[in-house]
């Protein structure tokens, strides 16, 4: 017995010690795919490219519930206000933006590195050459787009076109390139890839970059470069600003790119509902893949959706917050009347239902801005801040009714009520009842044909061909349903751009590149608040300050700060003027 047990014990020890090591320690991760597997497999290469798309700066509508970028970009401009504190770029607005950095940052060299790596790695694989060329062109577009997002914020940024090696030492510390060099890079890249990319894709690949997307990016980027050359000042030896002498060549480059798109006649202004101009304009942003869209980021309800409706719809239809953005009274006034006359309303002296008041406004007003009394989803929008009784007594209790009427309009009641008397309507989907986060599926349009026409008009005018500018402007006005112009001025071109592209995140960057931000920013925006008067049975308006802090604009804000962290990381970077 005893012997057996001794033996058993010995066997036991051997069992443990023998051969355990390899089995226990040579473990491999179960979720990693190797280099060799990726670059020889067309499916994995495509997956890599698609991941780059998902990270590229292509959407104003964030994937999560927070439509942060869109709202932030609108609020820093003069288009409106938000009472969502966490969406508020208050540093940019209130004048406290400094070298510690702030809102609207974009510095995605991780994306750029992954693109640069792709361009080298793709060459090592065995997939067909044409696939290599096509995918390379697509990701080069994404890289150019990333540089564009950076240059429009910071001016010149470091240009890195190859994946750096960690052992590169001092060479890792890349200084800023000149602003002009970055724009030139974007222009050159667009030229190269537009020659390679297809004109269109099969339906399952819609959303990928086409030849026209590349041209559209060039059209926009060159327009920016041209206006910065013409209106801006070269500083820091060209790190910000572009020589004035280069302006015309950039106008021309933009014009050429726009013309290339126009001449191919692959796109046309959306005009599916000519009998209802407001609806027609509204549907540009709701009907997927329509004739006007050059490039859009695709969304699919629930599985790849966003929360725009959830965040932005009026409160009576909310599921969460609703009403996160309120267009300003200044913007409302900027919409002309249908006959082309001034749309400025004498708010304190006007009475009546908005549907009457706004009846003769540009139909794009009806399609873009939600106001009191407007039909929405299953009900009308009720945005009044109070009532006055027959005797002129003011009442504004949120819980009280007066003669069957709520003293405060239902959609104004909560702290998410509109801050200006208006709400955002453009992009909103009226079929979404109680929309949840991720249920919205409006595609985010990056480039559409109307912008190309506007770019063309602006470049033509700046190149002293005002006649060439007139036709594209009138195409847009006619489609929108307002009177065509007989001749055109620069201000009219800019005005048309402001209205046609409203809320599409152009305004803030446009007034910066024209260097006219000081005229529009730095002063508080207003609301026109409806009150119902029982004496007249009419709504009347009170104009009030809509911002909960004071807007301040500083000359330095034409560029964002590189910021302290980035400069500490790389002392070769030089901070932009006004931030030291």
């Amino acid at each position: 017995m005893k012997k057996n047990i001794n033996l058993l014990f010995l066997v036991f020890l051997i069992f443990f010690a023998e051969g355990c090591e390899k089995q226990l320690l040579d473990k491999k991760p179960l979720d990693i795919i190797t280099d060799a597997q990726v670059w020889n497999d067309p499916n994995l290469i495509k997956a890599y490219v698609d991941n780059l798309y998902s990270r590229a700066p292509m959407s104003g509508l964030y994937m999560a519930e927070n439509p942060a970028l869109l709202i932030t970009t609108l609020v820093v401009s003069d288009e409106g206000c938000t009472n969502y504190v966490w969406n508020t770029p208050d540093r940019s607005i209130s004048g406290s933006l400094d070298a510690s950095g702030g809102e609207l940052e974009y510095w995605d060299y991780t994306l750029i590195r992954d693109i640069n790596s792709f361009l080298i790695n793709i060459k090592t694989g065995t997939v067909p050459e044409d696939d290599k060329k096509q995918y390379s062109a697509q990701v080069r577009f994404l890289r150019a787009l990333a540089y564009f997002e950076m240059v429009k914020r910071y001016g010149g940024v470091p240009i890195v076109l190859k994946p750096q090696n960690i052992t590169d030492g001092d060479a890792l510390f890349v200084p800023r390139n000149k602003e002009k060099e970055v724009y030139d890079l974007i222009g050159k890249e667009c030229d190269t890839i537009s020659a390679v990319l297809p004109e269109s894709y099969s339906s399952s690949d819609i959303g990928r970059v086409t030849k026209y997307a590349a041209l559209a990016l060039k059209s926009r980027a060159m327009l920016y470069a041209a206006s910065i050359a013409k209106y801006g000042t070269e500083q820091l030896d060209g790190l910000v600003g572009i020589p004035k002498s280069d302006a015309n060549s950039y106008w021309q480059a933009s014009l050429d790119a726009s013309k290339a798109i126009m001449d191919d006649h692959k796109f046309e202004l959306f005009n599916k509902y000519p009998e209802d101009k407001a609806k027609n304009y509204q549907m540009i942003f709701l009907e997927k893949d329509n004739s006007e869209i050059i490039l859009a980021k695709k969304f699919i309800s629930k599985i790849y959706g966003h929360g725009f409706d959830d965040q932005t719809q009026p409160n009576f239809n909310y599921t969460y917050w609703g009403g996160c953005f309120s267009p300003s009274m200044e913007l409302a006034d900027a919409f002309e009347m249908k006959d082309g006359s001034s749309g400025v309303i004498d708010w304190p002296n006007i009475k009546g239902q908005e549907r009457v008041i706004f009846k003769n406004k540009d139909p794009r007003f009806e399609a873009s801005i939600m106001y009191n009394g407007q039909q929405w989803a299953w009900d009308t929008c009720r945005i009044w801040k109070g009532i006055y009784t027959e005797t002129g007594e003011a009442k504004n209790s949120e819980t009280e009714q007066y003669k069957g009427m709520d003293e405060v309009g239902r959609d104004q009641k909560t702290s998410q009520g509109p801050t200006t008397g208006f709400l955002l309507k453009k992009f909103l989907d009226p079929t979404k009842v109680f929309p949840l986060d991720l249920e919205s599926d409006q595609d985010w349009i990056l480039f559409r044909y109307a912008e190309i026409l506007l770019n063309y008009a602006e470049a033509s005018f700046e190149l002293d061909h005002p006649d060439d500018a007139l036709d594209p402007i009138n195409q847009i006005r006619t489609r929108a349903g307002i009177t065509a112009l007989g001749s055109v001025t620069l201000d009219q071109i800019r005005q048309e751009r402001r209205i046609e592209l409203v809320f599409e995140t152009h305004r803030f960057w446009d007034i910066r590149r024209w260097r006219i931000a000081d005229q529009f920013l730095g002063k508080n925006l207003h609301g026109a608040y409806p009150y119902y008067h029982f004496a007249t049975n009419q709504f009347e308006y009170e104009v009030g300050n809509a911002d909960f802090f004071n807007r301040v604009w500083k000359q330095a804000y034409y560029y964002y700060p590189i910021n302290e962290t980035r400069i500490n990381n790389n002392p070769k970077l030089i901070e932009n003027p006004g931030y030291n």
Partner: protein
Amino acid sequence: MKKNHNYYGLFKPNSNWHKLLLTMKISAFLLFCCFVNIFAAPTYSQSTKISLNMKDVTVEEVFNKIEDVSEFYFLYNNKLIDVKRKVNIEADKEPIKDILNDMLSKDTKFIIYDRQIILVPSYVTALSAVMQQLKITGIVTGKDGTPLPGVNVVVTGTTKGEITDIAGKYSIDIPQGAKSLTFSFIGMQSQEINIGSSPKIDVTLVESAIGLDEVVVVGYGTQKRLNITGSVASISTKDVKSLPVANVSSGLVGRLPGIISIDRGGIPGSTPSISIRGFSEMLVIVDGVENSFNNIDPNEIESINILKDASAAIYGARAGNGVMLITTKRGKSETPTFNFNTYYGLQSPTRVAKAVDAPTYAQMINAAEIAIGHPPRYTDAEIQKYRDGTDPDYPNTNWYNEVFRKAAPISQYNLNASGGGENVRYFVSLGYLNQKGLFKSDDLGFRRYNFRSNIDSKITKSFSISLDLAGRDEFSYQPGGNVSQVMEDLGFCEPTRLAHYPDPTKLTFNGHGTTQPIGRSSKEFAGYTNQDNKYLDASLNFKYEAPFIKGLSASALITTNLIYGYMKDWGKQFYYYNYDRTTDTYTLAGVAQNSKTQLDEQLNRTANYTGQWHLNYDRTKGAHNISALIVGEYIDFSGDWFSAHREGYLTTAIDQLFAGADLAKNNNGSQTQDGRIGYVGRFNYSYASKYFVEVSSRYDASARYISTKRWGFFPSVSLGWRLSEEKFLKNISAIDNLKLRASIGKAGNDYVAQYNYLTGYNFNGSEAFGSSVNMGLISKGLANPDLSWENTLTYNIGLDGSLWKNLLSVELDVFYRKVTSVAGYRNASLPLSFGASLPQENINSFDNRGFELVLKHEKTINDLRYTIEGNVSYARKKWIHYDEPTYTDAATRERLQISGQWDNRFFGYKALGLFQSQAEIDAWPVIQDNNNNRTLKPGDIKYEDYNKDGVLNYLDNHVIGRGFVPDVIFGLNLSLQYKGFDLAMLWQGASNFNVYSRGRMTDYFDTGTIPYTYMTDYWSPTNTGAKYPRLFYSGASNNKYVSTYWLHDATYSRLKTIQMGYTIPKNLCTKIHIKSLRVYLSGFNILTLDHIYPFPMDPESGNVGENQYYHQQKSYNIGINLNF
């Protein structure tokens, strides 16, 4: 008998044994005799013959010689026996008895028990023979009522003594004139009881805290406290059991020096994090293998030991942050004992922030509106209606009370049995815990069932097997909205809104676009989330004592730890309504925020297999004691999970996957694996229980690293010196024990990224094209083949002392730890334009330093016994090197540099109070708002311009306080027992840390929240002495800067536990056929002293300043311990 072998080890056969007797005195002596009588057969002395030939030698030298040539050894008191006397001796194969008879003088007599020879002065028996005898009997029990066999009962001042029998009974003859009896037992506090008129004296012994013979569990073995050279904190069964808390770690803080347990909210089933000396999370070993411990039933735990210094290094690459060793109970050979323990308690928050009531809210809204030039929102008449509460349209709702109840019950039951004979011993235990949450809906709570069966059986004389089986089922449930969501919702509930309609199935609107918390906190409306975790631990241990080499033993252990976790998350879409009182009709008003009918299920499995073999050698020769240990350890870990999701349910009636729509169904899953091998060696040497050396090392490998970086060597050395055994201190009777310890050891921390040596790609980031979603693939980033564990080098110096027969004992440890090759990302020193996601690298380093001090006083005066123990510890961490850019100017360095700086610093502005007037603002030279102070108003916060540049901005950030983890922790334990009554109190506190309030705690109407009552003390021209700034709507960013204004010193002390118990007298117990019964009342966290007031934050809440969590709990409990 557990104590048996300890005591065996104490009486080492050596000629210096008398030195030990200084502490143990004659009592141990007699105790020893008794044990020998019980357990050994006295045949050796008769059969052994000895030959000697020595001239002019001392008696002592003869004893040494006899010990060398035979297995005999001698025990005596050198104060009573003259061993320096010179003798001549000649013997040829004579029995020991004859040799001694020849050699010893007339005044010395000897007794032989087997191999032990005891010398006593001959007058001992001579005296007693003529004494008139009085007999005293009684029973000696432990604190829990179990009888203690083998207790030494001695007539004080004499050698006259007896030993208690297996039932704890004794009977002793008392010489006339004797005043008292002394009861002593190794590991227990000795007691002296005066002899009264009663012939019966029953005694309860309590364990002595620094009992030198107490067995302490150390890495891969046990050691006596006497021999320990490292820093080991211990807590034993009695302390663990008396914790009326659901989890063990809540009860450890304050009891053990250096322990930091941070309880960030008391949600049922949650467990606080626990660490030592300000380190990161430590390794937890349960019965020899790595395991989680928090939800182990405290009734199953025998002891908890924490290895704080080099003593942890034996666990190698995992041990850098200390090791906690949990040992579960095992059976003893004794009559079967059944224990039934239960308690019932009521838990409630330590403090709750109250929102203002409806009229106050309306007034504050009006004031805020007026302040920005708007008309008031509520009329005076309306406010009056809210105040009156008579008009149903003007409610005054306390939403907190609508969602939470005052207190939630907790109850625990445990039944265990232990016992056994020579060959088989058992401990079996069954437990149940039921903890409810504070939601009125009763849909929040935690239940736990647990069992344990530890069986030890002796198969042959040298071979034994233990089989341990333990299982736990933990079930936690909560409504569709988790606690923090409900707390967030509560913040938005306007008190001017109704909480209920006549129809309770119709939810009201709370005034804001969030969910109504009454719905969210209820299963009926919002659905539920259930988490069910099942644990199964099985362990088989073979032990073999080699008969061929004395002192050699071997064992092998195989353990499996399996966890099955199942989660079911059933969300329901729910709505709220408008109600027309006149027509009694409800109209749908909206759907609750993000509420959606959907089902998620997830199954997790992990399996951890550990194999260990041990070779052990322990031998004493003369004054030399040697022990050696070799261990091999093999760990294999694997885990996997998968989940399923469906939505689009037509009805909420069926909460099953099959009932969901096919459209948006989804599933997911993955696997992980890990492995580890360690070879351990340890060598101990001690000389004369005076000098101690321990050397240990571990050769450790982890599958997380590349094969060339996989193996590491972790050595440690520690030394001990009992000064009290040295000549110069030996005669100072005040000193019982004084020991110096020093250790240095290297260990590791391998909680760093796994497989960092591989590059590659993961699926991540999908993108939509056309009408479908394509999978994305993303690079994992750069690889670092060199990544390995963090290295820790710990130095510890300690002092243990006990004075005046344990009246005062002290334990002091001072430590320094240096952690190098700390894993970090080289992001800061590389330009961001590099763009790669960098791998972890072993680039940073930091150190910790601190001390722990324990002072204890215990005394027994007749029936009154009391203990006072105070402990304090300090620990702080400093970065030696942190990867960051080289900052060139001093101001930037001060603001940003981490290297060379303390770790727990808090940055912000210094607030200088409130502006009292516009004139004060106009005169203020510092621009605070970037707008020439135009936006400032009286009642706004004024800040210090730290860098004196006239502008308040990020450049003015500087250190304004410490972080959220305390540097200083202290505890004060008081306990006293008088007859059947016992009282124990634990005061615990901490200092050198802060809490910070933000969000809703500081902002009157932050994003639409409701102010708290303390905020009514806001600044206004008529309340210039206010504590808080002027009323502001969102946007007054000046008052929200991170500053000293909202940073609070969190120093606190609190009555962590108090317990009062009563043990039913013995004779009553006997009548109802039980062994003992104790009833107690206890309280947990019931009193807190701090100066955070009026901010309603618990000092232990840390950085959760928005108050959106389940609050820290206090509880009152009633319980019984029954033994039968």
